[in-house]
């Protein structure tokens, strides 16, 4: 018995349905983490280390405790005395090879065979602060203002220690040792690919191009800063956390491990989440501390991050140094690739996913017969980095797409021809890449050709000429991409049918802007044969969930479509038994189509809701048929998804100021199957703009001399604004993925993945006449202007000189 509905005439799937959640959010009725309050709540503020690396000699809280309204001050000694455990970061995605094999990402373990582990991330450190901004004490007070005032008089005595903030410097001999457990500050040292075969290929190559580049650290800047309300009920021993995240179930599991209790003692609730992009996936110390502190003070404890605090204490993104070489023959066929990727994982590395995913995709969509990647996770005295929008993939694609453009420029190939020559062809799929990933299906060249048409690549030379007459230079760039969607490989859903409240869908993944309330209702309503208004989503309360993996790595709709479908099938099976009983036929004779159950050749026809009403009202039904309609499904997903596509843009560089303006931009994404194109286009544009932000202006900077975070507010950290962002042309293609019945690849992160490379490729193209081959991100006006002037500062060309003079 299947809930299958013929695909020919979908009512909802594939339609740009306007979002249900919007009605709440556009009228000010959203419920974000700071909107939540509990009676009698107290407020927390955190004392943070001003030093990048320091021994905590003593903490004197007496002045703070003497203030009116201060309830408590907690330090790392209290945490240790309470026997709390460190945050179990990513322990289903790191660890040993056996553990990693549960997921679909490549195995990345230490070359010496040791399992990948992180330094113990205690809620408050007992003896040492490991980065500037790390919380070392927590003040709890009657009001937020009192807590913040008291925070300033907590007297912490530190002994400053040598520190290192740069990843490459951290793993070099002689660098200050940060943790005893990790010699040379190396948290992971592993390799994938075929080193021997690669060296042999390089030995024979006639053309080699190399690149040393640093994909800089950025931070998520979710418009909603982190906030949490923790509470504890001594009667039941139940802890509760109200806080946004990628998924409440994961926070429940991690929090229960920290507290040392069974998961049934922890409830996590979230309603609306004001952006995540990966930064809120991992449990953070502040969130856990509100819960534990609530138990200590006997009142709920609330904490809301200030924006400056967020810059210091959020999990940050990217920060990868790559040294890579690409070998090719005289015709431009790619022969081999070798790379060293050094990821700056920060002080308490919470995740190796960015490093791991990036390492697996270095060859992008090109046919590279052999290669190897040496992967290093470097610990430094900086904030912890974790997955951020397409973790690791924009970095990998950036490097390869830059290499292709550099090779073309250096050896005289046409950039598009070089790509055409080397793109994996459809008949080569399934294709095993250098890291062992097997790409499933797709026409990568077709995507590239389409995006080139969308920006009128062929018409560029004329437009470039015109711009020159205005003292500007135009450039055009393209980047192809493939990315891998995995995430925690298990998901669960349940459908409950109630005559009064309709269809309730509970599922373990959650939205932070992706529109699940609408898109999940679309698929459920499609298959149930009901209207989308009748389906209600429950995702933000662990009391309702058996399991959940949350929204990470493009897993939500991919997995949701399967578990929702199966859960509906169970409901239909149960309903069919009732219909069969009513009609006096065997259940096997009952069919279900377009929302109606039909009892074989009899005239009995009922909708699922009819059955639900019957169950509720008809006392003469046998006991085994009178249970409320309910179906659930728990599924393990071993396969990854491979979204792919391309982006292209045309830019104009003002030589006098170094300002880059994007004139035209286009994106094409193969999402496998589009459930809601409106939502998908929004994802592509928003994701690409995040990538443009990194390419043009964003940069988290820790000063090497002082270890301080220099970019600690929105005055220092630039973000794309309405005035600087172009209008996008977007297109979706649908090559069904083999990994799920609907063929979904995912569409949330493909927009960011090629954007970095595309933008830099375009700007370098604009400046190639000056002999510029590469530019490091972010391409701020200062950097672009300096690059031009460094090359042509003493030009004898009078027009150019006049232009550059400023």
């Amino acid at each position, binding site marked *: 018995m299947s809930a299958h509905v013929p695909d020919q005439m979908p009512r909802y799937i594939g339609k740009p349905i306007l979002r249900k959640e919007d009605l709440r*959010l556009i*009228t000010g009725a959203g419920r974000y983490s700071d*909107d939540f309050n509990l009676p009698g709540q107290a407020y927390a503020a955190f004392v943070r280390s001003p030093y990048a690396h320091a021994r905590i000699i003593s903490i004197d809280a007496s002045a703070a405790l003497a203030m009116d309204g201060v309830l408590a001050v907690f330090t790392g000694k209290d945490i240790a005395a309470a026997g709390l455990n460190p945050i179990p970061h990513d322990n289903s995605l790191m660890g040993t090879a056996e553990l990693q094999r549960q997921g679909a990402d490549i195995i990345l373990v230490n070359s010496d065979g040791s399992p990948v582990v992180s330094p113990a991330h205690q809620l408050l450190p007992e003896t040492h602060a490991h980065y500037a901004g790390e919380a070392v004490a927590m003040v709890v007070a009657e009001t937020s203002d009192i807590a913040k005032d008291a925070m300033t008089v907590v007297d912490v005595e530190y002994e400053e220690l040598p520190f290192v903030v740069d990843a490459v410097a951290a793993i070099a001999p002689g660098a200050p040792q940060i943790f005893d457990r990790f010699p040379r500050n190396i948290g992971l040292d592993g390799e994938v690919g075929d080193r021997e075969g690669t060296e042999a290929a390089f030995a024979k190559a006639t053309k080699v191009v190399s690149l040393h580049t640093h994909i800089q650290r950025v931070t998520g800047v979710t418009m909603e800063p982190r906030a949490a309300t923790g509470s504890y009920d001594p009667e039941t021993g139940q802890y509760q956390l109200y806080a946004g995240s990628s998924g409440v179930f994961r926070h429940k599991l991690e929090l229960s491990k920290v507290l040392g209790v069974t998961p049934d003692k922890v409830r996590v609730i979230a309603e609306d989440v004001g952006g995540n992009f990966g930064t809120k996936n991992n449990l953070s110390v502040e969130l856990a501390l509100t819960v534990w502190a609530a138990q200590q003070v006997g009142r709920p404890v609330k904490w809301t991050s200030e924006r400056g605090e967020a810059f210091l204490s959020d999990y940050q993104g990217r920060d990868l140094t790559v040294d890579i070489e690409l070998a090719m023959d005289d015709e431009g066929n790619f022969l081999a690739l070798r790379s060293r990727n050094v990821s700056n994982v920060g002080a308490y590395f919470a995740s190796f996913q960015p490093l791991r995913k990036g390492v697996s995709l270095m060859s992008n969509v090109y046919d590279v017969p052999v290669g190897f990647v040496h992967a290093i996770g470097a610990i430094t005295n900086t904030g912890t980095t974790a997955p951020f929008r397409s973790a690791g993939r924009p970095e990998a694609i950036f490097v390869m797409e830059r290499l292709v453009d550099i090779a073309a420029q250096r050896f005289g190939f046409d950039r598009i021809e070089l790509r055409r020559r080397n793109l994996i062809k459809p008949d080569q799929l399934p294709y095993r890449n250098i890291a062992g990933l097997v790409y499933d299906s797709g026409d990568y060249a077709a995507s590239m050709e389409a995006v080139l048409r969308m920006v009128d690549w062929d018409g560029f030379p004329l437009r470039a000429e015109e711009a020159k007459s205005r003292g500007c230079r135009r450039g055009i760039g393209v980047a192809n991409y493939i990315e891998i969607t995995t995430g925690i490989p298990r998901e669960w859903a349940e459908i409950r049918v109630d005559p009064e409240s309709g269809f309730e869908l509970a599922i373990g993944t959650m939205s932070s*802007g992706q529109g699940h309330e609408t898109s999940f209702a679309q698929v459920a309503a499609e298959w149930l044969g009901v209207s989308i208004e009748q389906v209600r989503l429950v995702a933000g309360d662990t009391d309702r969930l058996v399991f959940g993996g949350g929204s990470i790595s493009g897993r939500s709709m991919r997995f949701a479509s399967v578990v929702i479908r199966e859960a509906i099938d169970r409901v239909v099976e149960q309903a069919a038994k009732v219909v069969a009983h009513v009609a006096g036929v065997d259940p096997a004779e009952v069919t279900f189509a377009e929302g109606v159950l039909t009892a074989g050749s009899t005239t009995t026809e009922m909708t699922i809701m009819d059955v639900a009403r019957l169950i509720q009202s008809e006392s003469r039904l046998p006991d085994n048929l009178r249970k409320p309609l309910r179906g659930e499904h728990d599924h393990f997903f071993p396969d990854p998804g491979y979204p792919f596509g391309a982006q292209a843009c045309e830019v104009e560089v003002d030589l006098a100021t170094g300002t880059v303006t994007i004139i035209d931009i286009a994106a094409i994404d193969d999402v496998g199957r589009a459930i809601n194109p409106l939502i998908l286009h929004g994802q592509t544009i928003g994701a690409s703009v995040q990538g443009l932000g990194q390419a043009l202006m964003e940069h988290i900077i820790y000063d090497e001399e002082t270890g301080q975070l220099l970019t600690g507010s929105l005055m220092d950290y630039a973000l794309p604004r309405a005035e600087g*962002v172009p209008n996008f042309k977007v297109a979706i293609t649908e090559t069904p993925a083999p990994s799920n019945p609907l063929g979904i690849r995912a569409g949330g992160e493909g927009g960011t993945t090629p954007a970095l490379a595309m933008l830099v490729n375009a700007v370098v193209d604009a400046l190639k006449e000056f002999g510029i081959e590469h530019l490091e991100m972010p391409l701020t006006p200062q950097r672009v202007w300096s690059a031009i002037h460094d090359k042509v500062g003493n030009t004898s060309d009078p027009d150019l000189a006049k232009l550059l003079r400023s």
Partner: protein
Amino acid sequence: MANVIIRVNGETFEREVEPRRLLVEFLREDLGKTGTHVGCDTTQCGCCTVILNGDAIKSCTILAVQADGGSVETIEGVGTKENLHPVQRGFRACHALQCGFCTPGMIMNSIALLRDNPAPTEAEIRHALDGNICRCTGYQGIVEAVQFGAKVLAGEDPDSLEAARAAHSHEV
């Protein structure tokens, strides 16, 4: 402590506040109107935008005492689910929000813009919204939403505009 009398969405409130109390804190905590959001601490992000005495302002950088005797419009007073303001209608029709956190500020600023300039160009819209940061949408849907709102305020039928949008897409 200071005594303030402030009209919010047409209703008068009298409260005792500390002089340092921000208007956004007054709205969110003293009045329980949590639709206006706090997104930063340097007046950069615009999530706190409300209309005070006819001007769009950042309520994180105005003290409650500065609004004494004045009139504030917040997102809660703009429209209802059953009766959306044209700009709200536009935000939904054009997918101008994803997480929704910047949205109240965007809507308030957009309404103020259209009162001053009922037929803004795209460049004028982008310039007016330059003080509102969105991290999710990339702004394109927001610009279209303001254009949609402007058209409806000028008399066009929102249902027809929505239908036209659904029929046409960005796709090439």
